[in-house]
């Protein structure tokens, strides 16, 4: 009946208290809130040197088939327009975002988004845009532009978006 004496196993408590007092905002910053939205100032679409013109008149995104990173003829036409614009507007740099639809695991879609962003980047480079002006980032399925769970939405989410990031006079 000597229960207490049998095994005493004190618990080493994990120090949780210190954490809850930490203000998380003090060490979190940056990140990718508005993926897909123009990074640089938009300007007006009537000004052919403006990011707004790039987005709306040239087209800032290309779409892909399921699991594919191959550029369609339509995508190549849009990217040709992007390349021409970037060659005319040399003050801009760009980050190409690769995205996937939600039909896939998180990890696979990150890799797939990287492939898509790179396919667009390689095309722009092949048309004369300097590689050091073009960064890539993959968002996988983290930032869909359309949120329905149907092919109509998935088709728009499987995309590479060229986001202008460079200096602009607005």
């Amino acid at each position, binding site marked *: 009946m000597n229960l207490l004496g049998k095994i005493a196993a004190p618990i080493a408590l994990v120090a949780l208290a210190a954490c809850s007092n930490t203000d998380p905002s003090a060490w979190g910053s940056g990140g990718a809130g508005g993926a897909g939205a123009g990074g640089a100032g938009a300007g007006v679409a009537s000004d052919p040197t403006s990011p707004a013109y790039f987005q709306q008149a040239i087209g800032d995104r290309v779409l892909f088939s399921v699991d594919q990173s191959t550029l369609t003829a339509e995508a190549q036409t849009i990217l040709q327009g992007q390349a021409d614009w970037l060659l005319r507007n040399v003050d801009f740099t760009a980050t190409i975002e690769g995205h996937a639809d939600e039909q896939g695991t998180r990890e696979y879609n990150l890799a797939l988004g990287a492939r898509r962003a790179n396919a667009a980047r390689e095309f722009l480079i092949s048309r004369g845009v300097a590689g050091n002006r073009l960064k890539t980032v993959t968002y996988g399925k983290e930032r*869909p532009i359309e949120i329905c769970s149907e092919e109509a939405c998935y088709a728009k989410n499987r995309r590479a978006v060229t986001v202008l990031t460079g200096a602009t006079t607005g």
Partner: protein
Amino acid sequence: MMKFLTSLFLGTALLVAPAQAQNQPLRIEITEGVIEPLPFAAPNFVPDTPAAAEYSAQLARVVAADLSGTGLFREIGSDAYISQVSSFEAPVQFADWKAINAQALVTGAVNVSGNQLTVRFRIWDVFSGAELGNGLQFAGTTDGWRRMAHKVADQVYSRITGETGYFDSRVAFVSESGPKNQRRKRLAIMDYDGANVQYLTDSSAIVLAPRFSPTGDRVLYTSYESGTPRIYVLDVGRVQRRVLQSQEGTMSFAPRFSPDGQTVLYSLAQGGNTDLWSMNIGSGQSARLTNAPSIETAPSYSPDGSQIVFESDRSGTPQLYIMPARGGEARRISFGKGRYGTPVWSPRGDYIAFTKQNKGRFHIGVMRTDGSEERLLTASFLDEGPTWAPNGRVIMFTRETQGASGRSALYSVDISGRNLRPVRTPDGGSDPAWSPLQ
């Protein structure tokens, strides 16, 4: 005693038997085959001191919830009790517990002195009238009372099933809020049952897929705080994090610790191509493990650290492969219909859990390490990202619902496919990572 043990062992045997009896992939419906759970009673613990009174019911409730939550036990509520337990030392009135068919009885006492809390407990086989194992005592501070209850429940579970428990464990996960196209994600950690949620990051940057170190003191995760996905290691106790070294122009994600905690396996995307790498976390020295134009991602070590299971689309669709830990020739282990991803080696080494996508549905499944005995445990619009309970008997995963209002939540399921349950989180939840037993 004999009868008591037999009844639950029989249950365990039934759980496992269908898998061993068949070589063909077996689909187990959640609703199929009901095991009769073992009835038990867990009356309020006896308070030794007036200050202990507030814990007397709470401790017993957490113990009971842990046991009932496994689906292997069924609590008999206090309204059925014939006698009460008012003294921890007094002889148990077995006849009164037999009469209400409680096969197991957990009795406990709690003492509070200042901020120190001491819990004593005993486990009884009611029908034989014998004590099951020895009484034990746990002591700690009062704010750790839930952990002590989990430890009691782990003892009950372990003594009755013969398996290690998993209740005194934590889960790191991504807390989610907002619509799909503006989802806010924060790294969080909680007890395995959803209690004591603590946030480790704010929602200013996307965070993904936390993974525990083998000792549970550190968490690896992927964050966009620098603008591109990079891997961070976070000291859970101090809530301090640092970024792992990475080459300019690359993206890294899908990290996982080696069993010795010294090495991080991860995916690195460079020039559009994703391969597997490892890095010594102390020296920062990295090594490339695969070199192919296909996607290689979601790596996981075997418990002995000698092999790696991972996902690759080298065959044209994502499938599972195993290769030596230092890289080298990989053999494919998934051959069923559909696409396979996110393989995770069981802590016991016996199974690999995975995500499977087939005909527009997602499943969590398990297979032997040679790919045999594939069993799908779940089916829904989107299930993914399994993580193992420390005892290798239960899997937690992410389930996301369909459509514009789709929401993600954590669920758990037995490796038998039974006992599918939502795991409570304050907001949406995804990417669970189960800690080792504390």
